[in-house]
């Protein structure tokens, strides 16, 4: 983190001043352009200080995990694209297209609540009530935002109104 905060064993300016030749091998052929007296070969050697094997293994494992996980990436990217397309379709009130895209997303991720809520709303607005009913049923028992719950309840109420059997007239 604080890389240049000096730990107790850091070489001091006084240490460097005591050195007359290269601080490592004592050679007189040190590079004068630098503040630290080091010959070219010692400087190169110190600059190329090896990274410990343990650290290299840890980095290698992390990279290997990333490669393994990337196998699934195209699928989730496709779904993110589908959702983005759904958002755009929804913005231009093209609810049928939004529904089509969200069906792909929620099929791949059936536990994706936000996607299901959007699908319920868009399919209702597109007039595809069968999908709406199925989606609302899928949402039963899930914890949703208060606002979403209100909207879904409104859709349910509207659907009930639409498809409730006509009250029979009573003969007087």
């Amino acid at each position, binding site marked *: *983190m*604080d*890389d*240049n*905060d*000096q*730990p107790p*064993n*850091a*070489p001091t300016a006084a240490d460097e001043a005591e050195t007359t030749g290269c601080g490592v091998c004592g050679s007189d052929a040190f590079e004068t*352009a*630098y*503040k*630290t007296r*080091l010959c070219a070969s*010692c*400087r*190169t050697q*110190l*600059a*190329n*200080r090896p*990274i*410990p094997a343990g*650290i290299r293994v*840890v*980095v290698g494992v*992390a*990279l290997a*995990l*990333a490669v*393994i*996980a*990337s*196998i*699934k*990436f195209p699928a*989730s*990217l496709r*779904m*993110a*694209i589908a*959702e*983005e*397309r759904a958002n*755009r379709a929804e913005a231009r009130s093209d609810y049928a297209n939004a529904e089509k895209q969200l069906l792909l*997303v929620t099929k*791949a*991720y059936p*536990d*994706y*609540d936000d*996607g299901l809520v959007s699908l319920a709303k868009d399919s209702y607005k597109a007039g595809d009530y069968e999908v709406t009913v199925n989606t609302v049923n899928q949402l039963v028992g899930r914890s949703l935002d208060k606002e979403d719950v209100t909207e879904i309840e409104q859709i349910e109420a509207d659907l009930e109104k639409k498809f409730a059997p006509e009250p029979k007239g009573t003969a007087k």
Partner: protein
Amino acid sequence: MIPGILITLITFPGVIVHEIAHQLFCRLMRVAVFDVCYFRVGNPAGYVIHETPRTNLQHLVIGIGPFLVNSIAGALIAFPSAMAVIKFDAGGPLDYVLVWLGVSIAMHAFPSTGDASSIWSGLKDHNAPIWLKIVVAPVVALIYIGAIGSIFWLDLIYGIAVAMAGPMILAKLLA
């Protein structure tokens, strides 16, 4: 309030990558490295002790290099899993590990105040041209803001943003 040491312990891969980046840029700039601590429980959690760089470029590259390395590495590692975990809430254990790894690495991208003061004092020592000081001053200021911002989780916010931004931007571009 969660102690900083706990955050550092949880996000230790970021410290390791940060120090590796410093070391690699020292190698690239041919600056002698005397000691490296990749991670420890203490303050600082990691460090690279190197000789005073000869040029302004060396100062800048060694100081700012980890910012680029940690940001890019964090984004790339979290990239495959970020969408499944954060967007669709459908990640498996491996996805969660990679998101943790990516966010941890990215959140340690900010150079430390030590790095900032090193860059600034390097520029002063080398009688850098005024235009370079004008260019670098805001960078140093940003680094300080980043370091101070870690008190209110700016580094974590940055880590999450980096891990999420790549996949989301890609999805928006391809949609």
